[in-house]
């Protein structure tokens, strides 16, 4: 088939989220207990949809759904193998960035909707963080698209058949990695929920199916950004011996493992210092990365 059906994308989302859950256990060094995990998942889903004492009904209930839609939409743009992708869009990387952009209002809606002081703080933290990191993310996408002369993810993969973009543009790769961790609100950028600081923050009010959707969306997001990282920087499906889809899966798992491992090695970032780093360092460097990409394109990719 030339494209995955929506059902196929959902299957990848669910399967990927399960794999991420396993990876989390592996990285944390805890024993994988499928029975316990299944019981936890089952009881979580069966919990009643309890609402906080004061909350904004629309925002509160729309946020998890919007978050999941954004995550699945981002996942759909990832090229898993030649002809094996959800959406074959000419400006696929822009669509990917556009889908991720909806994570920002979703998290803010959750924080504002729950109405607790720490929930609101979590929402505002996220808004500030994403405003700061959206620009480097978009500029890095431009930098890796330039050599391919295309915004289609599969074209960017093809241009890396000889050398992965991570080696050609290490600066862009270094800027991309923290930005995608931030998008997934995973440690050390788990600022909107930050259990030990905000007690769950923006998502503390969710129970039952709502909580399960937030959990699922966060893991689907990780699969999506890991897959896109493999496609944009690690030559995607290119590799010896193994089938293309397997290479892509291996690289995706590698990126996801790196992200989860880094989250356990680094302390949670502080908002003020993180924002200062983003605006004063990451954004200027992203412009430098575009200039480098232009020079490289003129020199080697024309």
């Amino acid at each position, binding site marked *: 088939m030339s494209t995955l059906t929506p059902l196929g994308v959902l299957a990848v989302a669910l399967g990927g989220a399960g794999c991420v859950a396993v990876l989390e256990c592996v990285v944390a060094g805890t024993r994988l*207990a499928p029975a316990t995990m299944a019981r*936890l998942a089952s009881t979580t889903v069966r*919990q009643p949809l309890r609402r906080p004492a004061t909350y904004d009904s629309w925002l509160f209930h729309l946020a998890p759904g919007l978050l999941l839609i954004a995550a699945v939409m981002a996942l759909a743009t990832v090229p898993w193998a030649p002809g094996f992708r959800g959406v074959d869009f000419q400006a696929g990387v822009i669509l990917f960035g556009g889908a991720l952009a909806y994570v920002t209002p979703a998290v803010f809606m959750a924080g504002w909707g729950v109405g607790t002081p720490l929930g609101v703080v979590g929402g505002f933290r996220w808004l500030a963080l994403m405003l700061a990191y959206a620009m480097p993310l978009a500029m890095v996408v431009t930098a890796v698209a330039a050599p391919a002369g295309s915004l289609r993810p599969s074209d960017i993969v093809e241009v890396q058949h000889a050398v992965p973009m991570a080696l050609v543009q290490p600066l862009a790769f270094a800027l991309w990695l923290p930005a995608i961790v931030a998008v997934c609100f995973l440690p050390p950028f788990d*600022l909107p929920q930050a*259990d030990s600081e905000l*007690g769950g923050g923006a998502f503390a009010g969710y129970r039952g199916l709502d909580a399960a959707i937030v959990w699922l969306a966060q893991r689907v997001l990780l699969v999506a950004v890991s897959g896109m990282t493999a496609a944009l920087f690690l030559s995607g499906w290119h590799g010896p011996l193994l089938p293309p889809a397997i290479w892509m899966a291996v690289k995706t798992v590698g990126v996801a493992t790196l992200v989860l491992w880094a989250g356990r090695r680094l302390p949670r970032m502080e908002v003020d210092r993180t924002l200062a780093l983003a605006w004063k360092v990451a954004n200027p460097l992203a412009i430098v990365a575009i200039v480098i990409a232009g020079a490289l394109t003129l020199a080697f990719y024309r």
Partner: protein
Amino acid sequence: MVLRLRRSRHERVPGFVIPDEQTWTLLGAESAMAGLQLTANPAAARVVLAPDPIPDELAEGVAALRELLPDDVAIDYRALPVPVGTRVRDLRVGTEAPAAGMEHGHGEHDGHGDGDGGHHDMMAIVGDPSADGLIMESIQLSHGPLAAPLPGGLVVDVTLDGDVVAESAIRALLRVEPAGPEPRVPDALTPVAWTVVFAEAVARAGGGSTGSERAWLSLAAVELERAVSHLAWLRSLGRLLDLHPLIEACTRSLAALQASRAILPYDTPHDDWLEAAVGAPDLPDGRDALSDLVKLVTRSRGLRWRLRGRAVLTKAEASSRGLCGPVARASGRAVDGRTDDPRYARLGFDPALGTQGDALARAILRAEEALAAVDLARRALEADACPDAGGVPGGAAVTEGPRGPLSARWTDGRWLLVAAGAEPARRAAADAMVGLEWSAALAVLASFDLSPWSVGA
């Protein structure tokens, strides 16, 4: 329906601990937390570990917590080895008041105590709002008394301007009134040091002193408690910062000290300490793990990133604020009750001092003090004849606890207890939080290692 989950050593179930992890660790009940993956988010918890009985002061907090917990959460009530506020066994002072001539030499402590302002002492600090210059709607927030990983019983009332702390006040809710001649441990985070202080106070009230062997054991027990207290605090700091290498290193060090902690008299009468000293041979293992921890704390870039330059207290400020214990020593102020103690002099004690006075210096100093405490405990258990600790018969007994000097004196038919430095530390912490973003403010608050127990008159 209550969810039943098997808790094993390797499987981890999200759990919330009441009142806090430090209390369970300090009271020697760490095994109760085995199999729990501690979470500070009540909504994520599947098991709640709670002491039986829960202190009355936490009832309101527990009620608020129940609103946040999932409906099917399992609550695991367990009795602590030392029930909170328990009386100290085998220590009883005669009901007759000491002679009037025995009261001199300690007047500066009389009538003073931690929390002069009453049971729910509150210190409000107001600073300049909005460090970034923006005018935002303020948010009133009462963080606590069950706000893990901060100690349960500590409440931080703040006004947030955006996410910047504009006003701050700290309350210590927990309190035990030592009514009558039987002393009661007034701070569950410092059970051994208070027990030792009471023992010495009782001996002094009778005009004598504790025996030589018992004195060395007391000293070793206090030092081991200091090590455990600092490690438990470092671990909670690691949880606050979400710094897993620090959490794991502290857990390893605590496990290594676990066997040695048999000499700590959590649940044994004072007279049984000699028999309980068999754990001493395990101390070298604890030292190795602690050495690794000190290296980690000293070299960790993550800790430096989060704590360096935060809440700097100069030596002069520490002195003018009346700060004691590790907080003052991290600022370079050499205030340590052990310095003048001939027993510590015999052991070659040299107080650790910091210079920077920031949150990082406080963390490094506590890690170094934990290592030094294990060394002191080992030397004390190997030492022979014990010199007299000095002091005036009938005067106040003083011991340097993990957070500063602790003093007890029996006079006029009542106990006078002082935890010097606790109130200034709360005031300094509240002051230091103002103007900081919320996560930085919490890290600064944690760096003071405040006790939720209010001690004194």
